[in-house]
């Protein structure tokens, strides 16, 4: 990142606060989650690096460190820490991360394109039948569960491949990614239903 601290002139790792002088910055609500964590936009994210960044930047913005700095600084810390936590939540969840990238590149939103890939639909109808009819914990349900998990992995690989490297803004492939995301949402919901019906845990 090229930005510098308006207070001390040091280079900034995150637009939330200056790592050199500690001053908190005012950041817009819709700021890019990648920028907030000091990263270039891109689909692959190193989970460990992300966590390290979260912790390092939290040390700069956590309200605990502004308890004596007056109401205004405290409010800013609350706000910036909330932005940081939200950015981390988006980037550490592959669905939300992909979602954000598709939107950023001008691809269709979930509202614009709610469909799933054509090939997937037939299977969905079959799965729904099993979901409705098979009893919780039965062999059939277990089979469905592992089948869904397998599918989920396959879809995830497809999404990752389509977004690495990032396609050009407005690329036609973004519609495909959106459909895959919709499919994965369906699988996640179905898996959620299976584990919920298997009993409270």
């Amino acid at each position: 990142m090229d930005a510098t601290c308006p207070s001390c002139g040091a280079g900034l790792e995150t637009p939330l606060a200056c790592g050199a002088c500690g001053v908190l910055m005012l950041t817009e609500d819709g700021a890019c989650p990648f920028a907030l964590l000091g990263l270039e936009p891109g689909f692959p994210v190193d989970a460990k690096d992300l966590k390290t960044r979260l912790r390092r930047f939290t040390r700069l913005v956590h309200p605990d460190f502004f308890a004596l700095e007056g109401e205004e600084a405290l409010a800013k810390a609350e706000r910036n820490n909330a932005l940081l936590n939200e950015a981390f939540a988006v980037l550490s969840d592959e669905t939300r991360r992909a979602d954000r990238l598709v939107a950023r590149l001008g691809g269709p939103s979930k509202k614009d394109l709610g469909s799933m890939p054509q090939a997937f639909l037939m299977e969905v109808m079959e799965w729904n039948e099993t979901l409705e009819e098979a009893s919780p914990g039965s062999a059939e349900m277990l089979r469905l569960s592992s089948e869904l998990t397998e599918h989920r992995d396959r879809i995830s690989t497809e999404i990752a491949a389509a977004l690495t490297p990032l396609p050009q803004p407005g690329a036609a492939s973004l519609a495909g990614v959106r459909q895959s995301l919709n499919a994965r949402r369906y699988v996640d919901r179905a898996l959620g239903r299976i584990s919920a019906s298997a009993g409270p845990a």
Partner: protein
Amino acid sequence: MGYIELEVLEDQPKRVVIGIDLGTTNSLPAIWKDGRPEILEVEGEPALIPSVVHVSDDGTAVVGRTARARSMDDPAHTVHSIKRFMGRSLGELDEAVLRRLPYQVTQTERGLVQVEVGGKRFTPQEISALILREVAAQASVAMGGAEILSAVITVPAYFDDAQRQATRDAARLAGLEVLRIVNEPTAASLAYGLDQKEEGTVAVYDLGGGTFDVSILSIEGGVFEVLSTNGDTSLGGDDLDALLVDLLRSELEGSVEGSVFDDPAFRQAARLSAEKAKVALSRDPEADLVISLPELGVNARRTVTREEFERLAAPLVERSIRCCERALKDAELEPKDVDEVVLVGGSTRVPLVRAEVERFFGRAPHTELNPDQVVALGAAAQAEVLMGGSRDILLMDVTPLSLGLETMGGAAEKLIQRNNRIPCSVKEGFTTYADNQSAIDFHVLQGERELAADCRSLGRFKLTGIPPMPAGLPRVGVKFHLDADGILTVSAKEESTGASASIEVKPSHGLTEDEVSDMLEASFKNARKDFEERRRVDLIAEIGIMLRHATANLTVAEERLDRESVEDLHEAIAAAKEARLCTELELVQAARDTLDRATMPLAAVLMDSVVKEAVSGKKLGDL
């Protein structure tokens, strides 16, 4: 004493911030000193304050040990376990719990719990404020008179917004600035981590007097990160006691009138007997539940074996283990991934609890830290962080419950998921359904259930001041912010015009801002009176101790003192006995001073004989 005081005062930083464990059964202050947290002590003992308040018919309130001592002879005026009612409405409370209380519980017109003692009604916030005042007063004594204005106060991690707000309001009523509301298991992990210098994944199992929490944390390089938390805000030692109370009741069933069970004296005696037996059962294979109230015709003794108690307690312990399962699942961990289990809270002394925790996690829990002190120690460490003393420690906590909005259809739409890191914010857009509609109502919920009716209602908000526009055109952005204390604030803005809409809040289970202000104002008016009352109560307690010593040694006085001194002593004793019932501070003070003077010759004689006894029969060389 005077010298020590001076020295302590010089060492004090400009601002003293203490950590307070505000517990269901006991409360405890701690402070950071010389690079580590330390429990505050008065006269060499931890300044442990029983969370009990006694209110006389004349309105005088006493807190702590004195109040607990009154709980047997005056149960209807003695309030205990008030923490279980914080931020609650009467309608939500378990009938069985209410039936066991020796004091009266009523509700405000909005349905908030109130206790009625000494002809006066108190909200749980006000009772807790009295406890906090006493904790601060004792902490001040422990620090040689330093004034305490700010504190870090702990709450169960599973406390919801209303319960946290209630705690914060209690502190405000007690004249304390709350620098942070910190979760009890998080505080405990902090104390554990600082003490043991261990890193890794830690599970904190905290079974207190009235609440249960489990938190899974990662401790690494001074970062204490809560991965997940779960719990039950109505599961604790009180519930274990209740099992034994029920045993006593069934033992008495048929032999006494049913109305006896409603008598405050019975309820209190049964509770105390149960508590005693429970504590004994942690040590011995069996214990006796004993109750003897001749005036009620109650006389019973029932032997309970540990095995029987454990059979009764098993479902409660099982409930806590289910919470541990859910917490691990949310943290995406298995029991074997946990490197250490830390036990917190007095109820973890129950052998069954330890055994079940060990069985579930597959490792013996860590028991080196005192489970009654570790939370207060952690709160003091957190206070140090807030005071700017340490940037090496970083606490990252989560919200225990999902936050949601009621939809048109009565479902709960989740805005913030449980175990989300705090602070966090979420923005939600609203619009109007009718032309020129100027207000929008929404209902904020907390909980995991799908239907709004099954979640806990936090409050109803009314957005007003929306400029007149056709239906659907206004875009009101509402921002929900959970702060580092886990408390919600809501702000709104009409985005097409930029007009900031105002929000009226009607908390479902808490005090409104106006109610807190009114209570504060009333307490300022009463501050002088309160101070005098307190002084009077302290003097009466002191007179009590002096009287006990004087009457115990009256024979010595009559044998060894001159007639005049003996007469003085008798007069002073009679006057002091009378003064204990007196409501005038000056008269009580005078009686105490007279008694003090009159007992001096006796004290001298006693001291003399103690020395003589010590040296008698010994040769000079032995001394």
